[in-house]
């Protein structure tokens, strides 16, 4: 979410981050502030729900009337129509990468980096993220200054400090 906000600022785009992370707002036609947003987000939600049926079920008995696989197929078709097949692959690769990144981050209990604590203060406050279970791993959330994500350094320096060598 921090990199979304950073990149949108560099590109001069006003992004509705709240809407981006709200899986309930996947209907096509929404105004998120960037091209093909509704299709990309609908695809991301659909792909995650098919790839993680235990999580998506949230404890239901699996008898939901809508077919997640059919929803994903339609989301894929609509995404290809606006970003092409290469765009679909890029989106699929991103969903896949973060399905792994989430698990190594949560499974090893890493803390937010200091730069991330500062840069994410605004978005964490906006979205109430500090209430999540994983926030307990970062012991200095209330200690470091909250500069609202605008430290005075170059864009590259900021990205490097946030996610240096993310691979």
């Amino acid at each position, binding site marked *: 979410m921090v*990199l*979304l906000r950073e990149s*949108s600022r*560099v*590109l001069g*785009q006003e*992004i509705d981050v709240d809407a*981006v*992370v*709200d*899986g309930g707002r996947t209907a096509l036609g929404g105004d*998120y502030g960037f*091209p093909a*947003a509704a299709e*990309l987000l609908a695809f*991301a939600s659909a*792909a*995650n729900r098919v*790839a*993680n*049926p*235990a*999580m998506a*079920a949230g*404890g*239901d008995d699996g008898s939901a009337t809508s077919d997640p696989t059919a929803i*994903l197929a339609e989301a894929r078709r609509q995404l290809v129509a606006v970003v092409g097949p*290469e*765009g679909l*692959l*890029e989106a*699929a*690769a*991103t*969903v*896949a*990468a*973060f*399905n*792994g990144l*989430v*698990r*190594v981050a949560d*499974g*090893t*209990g890493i*803390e*937010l*980096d200091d730069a991330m604590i500062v840069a994410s203060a605004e978005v964490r406050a906006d979205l109430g993220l500090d209430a*999540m*279970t994983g926030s307990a*791993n970062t*012991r200095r959330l209330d200690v470091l200054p909250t500069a609202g994500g605008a430290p005075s350094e170059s*864009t*590259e320096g900021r990205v490097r400090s*946030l*996610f240096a*060598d*993310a*691979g």
Partner: protein
Amino acid sequence: MGTWIDEARREAVEAVARPGDWLTAAERLDVWREARRADHDPIDRARRAAITPAAVTDRHPASGHLAADAVDVVHRVATDPGRLTRAWADERIAALGVETYTELVGVTAIVRCLDTFAVAAGEEPVEPPPPVDGEPARHRPDDVGDVGAWVPQSVDKTLANVSRTLSLVPETNRAWRGLVNAHYSRGDEFLDLNWDRSLTRVQVEAVAARTTAELDCFY
């Protein structure tokens, strides 16, 4: 891009089927099977539905090659990563050893990445290859220590925390980082917020943000 992804995915599949850091190839392939089985396991579904994971006390049995505690790690990381706690991890680490615990997390992440890409792109799921004979490397790096995570990690402060999660298990880490590099970061291109890809940086980060939200990830 497709070729680059295909090559990285092939390398990761081969890496899972080889002896790892502390796990044999058969054990690593069992991680893959268990991660898939977890998706439809009634215990995992019940735990996911519970107000707290601790409310479900049923335990998974051992698998063909993995102890019950190892199976629990794979299932919990696969199906409910956002509600893992340090107390839970400490118990599993005490039972398995911190290196084995870390490798289980890493292999689960790798196979989740592989399987999710197939689902998302509309491809057939990867068929795990047969295990490769041999012994695990059993090498603990010298440059790891307590950097605030549940497991020791590289003390190299030039790396972001998310980049050194698996540094305790270098064989697994190599496979994992190759996969992430191909799927997302792509070397120095990651530093360019205005990169030249089929999706803009904002579009990619939006997909990433929606994914982490769907998976309840704070980080």
